């Protein structure tokens, strides 16, 4: 299959996948015995006030009608309004997406850097003390719950050592918004203080998110290296007398990296899942904390909007991974 055909194939499945996702989330959100109108009306409201809210947001309509309306509006780019912020969902998502993307990007970068490095080291030193130590370390990182790791980091780096901020995305309110990406905005507005502050604030949530992902990547990279080292082509190169470092650099790493790239799509999904918890603990104003709040308050449109947004991100990342795989090893796409 050519690259073009691969992309076309993935795009063809893009819409049905999203539709399936939305249908499942819609059904799940409606089977929970919650009446958002009662919640929104407040503790002191009358039944009539709650009914008025139901009518205002179409919650009094049959479920099928609500779903059809939702799909119709979604196709037109209208994801509805949030019950609580009273803003269009797109506006809410746009306000929070940059924070999450910034965190996910930083965590992916750190995870790649640490995971690939440790995976290669472990694979090249298979069954040595280093391999065992790294094995224990990576399994520990995967086993530790993100919320516990987050609190331990806060306790150590913020409370005991006082090196890093406890929470938030930047000290005080962020600099004047241009793109919503705080690093970019700080650069554009030449606000060195905000840039420095943002860098300090992103470190702990990044590490919390990145370590489990790095551990997973390290395991996969290690296995990839071991498999490559015992492959017939490497045996052949060794028999040909090529120096070990040339074989590793030129053949082993190239073969091993396939496993890492394949893994990255899954790792990104893990990162997005972790974001929900990490953003809450570190008071990081992104999609994760928005999702938590929306779920707790049964803000249907917001939950659906979050799902749609993360679904699109995941499918896009997986598409990019497929393309990258095809670029590294064209045989896979044949």
């Amino acid at each position, binding site marked *: 299959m050519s690259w073009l055909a691969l992309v076309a194939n993935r795009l063809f499945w893009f819409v049905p996948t999203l539709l399936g996702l939305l249908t499942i989330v819609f059904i799940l959100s409606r089977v929970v*015995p919650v009446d958002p109108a009662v*919640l929104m009306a*407040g503790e002191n409201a009358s039944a009539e006030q709650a009914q008025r809210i139901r009518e205002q947001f179409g919650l009094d309509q049959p479920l099928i009608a609500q779903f059809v309306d939702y799909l119709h509006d979604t196709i037109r780019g209208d994801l509805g309004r949030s019950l609580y912020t*009273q803003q269009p969902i797109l506006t809410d998502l746009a306000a929070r997406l940059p924070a999450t993307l910034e965190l996910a990007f930083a965590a992916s970068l750190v995870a790649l850097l640490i995971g690939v490095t440790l995976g290669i080291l472990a694979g090249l030193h298979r069954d040595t003390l280093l391999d065992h130590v790294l094995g224990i370390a990576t399994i520990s990182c995967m086993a530790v719950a993100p919320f516990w790791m987050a609190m331990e980091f806060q306790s150590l780096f913020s409370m005991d050592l*006082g090196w890093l901020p*406890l929470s938030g995305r930047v000290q005080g309110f962020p600099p004047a918004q241009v793109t919503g990406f705080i690093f970019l905005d700080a650069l554009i507005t030449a606000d060195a203080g905000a840039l420095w*502050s943002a860098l300090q604030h992103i470190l702990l949530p990044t590490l919390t998110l990145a370590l489990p992902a790095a551990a997973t990547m390290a395991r996969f990279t290690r296995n990839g290296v071991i498999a490559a080292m015992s492959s017939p082509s490497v045996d052949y190169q060794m028999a040909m007398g090529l120096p070990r470092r040339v074989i590793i650099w030129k053949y082993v790493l190239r073969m091993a990296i396939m496993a890492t790239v394949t893994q990255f799509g899954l790792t990104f999904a893990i990162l997005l899942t972790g974001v929900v918890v990490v953003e809450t*603990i570190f008071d990081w104003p992104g999609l994760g*904390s928005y999702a938590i709040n929306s779920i707790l308050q049964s803000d249907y449109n917001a939950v659906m909007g979050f799902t749609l947004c993360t679904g699109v991100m995941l499918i896009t990342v997986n598409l990019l991974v497929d393309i990258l795989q095809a670029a590294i090893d064209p045989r896979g796409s044949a």
Partner: protein
Amino acid sequence: MRISRRAVFRTVVCSAALLGAVALSLPGGQAEAAESGTTFVFADNSYYNSLDPHTVFDVPSAAMRFNLYDGLYRWVDNPPRLIPWLAESDSVSADGTVYTFTLRRDVKFHDGTPLTAADVVYSVERLIALRKGPAGNFLDVIKPGKTRAADPSTVVFELAGPSAIFLKTLPDILIVNSALVRANEKDGDWGEAWLARNEAGSGSYRLRRHDPVRGFTATRFADHFAGWSDRPIDELEFRTVLDTNTRVLGMMRGDFQGTDGYLPYEQILRLRRSPNVTVLEQETMRIFGLALNNSRPPMNDVHFRRALAYAFDYDGFIKNVLKGSVSRNPGPNPNTIWGTPAGLKGYSYDLAKARDELAQVQGPLRPLTIMALAGLSDSEQAAILFQNSLRQIGIEATVEMAPWTVAASRMAQAETRPDVVPIWKSTFYVDPNNWVGEMFGGRYVARTFSFYNNPAFDRLLDRALVSDSQDERQALYEDMTRMVSDDAAGIFIYNTRWYGPYSSRVEGIRFSPVSHGLDLRWASFKR
């Protein structure tokens, strides 16, 4: 292009060194605490989604309502006092239906526009037209078009009938700048979309920035009519910090100068050990009890309910589970307000009496459902303790943990409401009607604690709501309280103590059970 391994290695090492350097930077973490010296940062566990004082009405929104806006009257201090705020004086007609208020003439909105009676009229009409937030307190008594401006400083309310609680609920009508809101109305929405993100008040603080993702900041309004002490706080920030541990650590580090006063008690004990934190303590008016669904058998049998009331271990719960952090409150009204008959003892833990009452139940018994509010330890622990006690008298109960969203929805109707819900009743206005009246009155069925159906109670309530005699009202509410206590219409456990954590650099916090320590115009940093 060939990249040498050495180059790759150097890149990795440099990246790690950069990360390390940032992590080890000395000004890093400490800067936050130092910089907040000029700003009072209050961390709360809820979002400030909307800044419209006519559509939101919950405990956290008091931060917005009482700092950015003013009302005709205001509740302050503890025990709460109702003091004139925008109003200088009031008079009421002989039949109790016409209230006339004279406004102060020196009040300005934040844009410099004078506040007049026309703004009050617009605010009232807007509140009852939107029918959200605090509107529920007024829809019965204020009808559209019945509030008028007699002159720029006189406003007249013609009520649908006499109301003994009208003045007490009046602080919940906050006054907006009518010209400014009108200019931002769209399609007859009363400016609702605009005011959710902007501000049109005359309050002690003026909105600077609002970000629903983060919270809002406000600067001191120097021209506020009430004047200022010599060292007021110039800038406030109300920040959403959902995680309790993060709020507590932030207080201990000095990042935050205040956080919510209803934290779990073990967190209060942590905060007390920090030199950066002072925990203020007040008996408040937020009662906790087991709300019983009186509508379904066998819960509609008074003997069954009394058996339940005798089966809760009040002292064990308060002394052992809650470590004595709250006060026993035997009736539906807080101990700190009138309306409870002298010497009301309520029920005590006595399983023998519970069995005696159970023996008198006429119909068949069935397993009960106790729905605890998930994540709220008092509610969860009370549910489990009660389940164990019930088992000892032969009643099986299932405990369900549900988030507030699920619980609130199920509680809205008698058919879906669980048999028992351990829950709080907060202060919205300071009158026994806020508690015994609303929890058990048939007219308040949507906000009732109980689905209690007692025509004799409702007759007393009707009289209490129109009486202009304090003595008569007191007697009526005492009778109502006695009635629900005798009927065991609910199980009343404790009155909450408020433990307000503030920075030890802050002084002048004035707590009121209505504003929950969030009305910050009197606070200042110590010299």
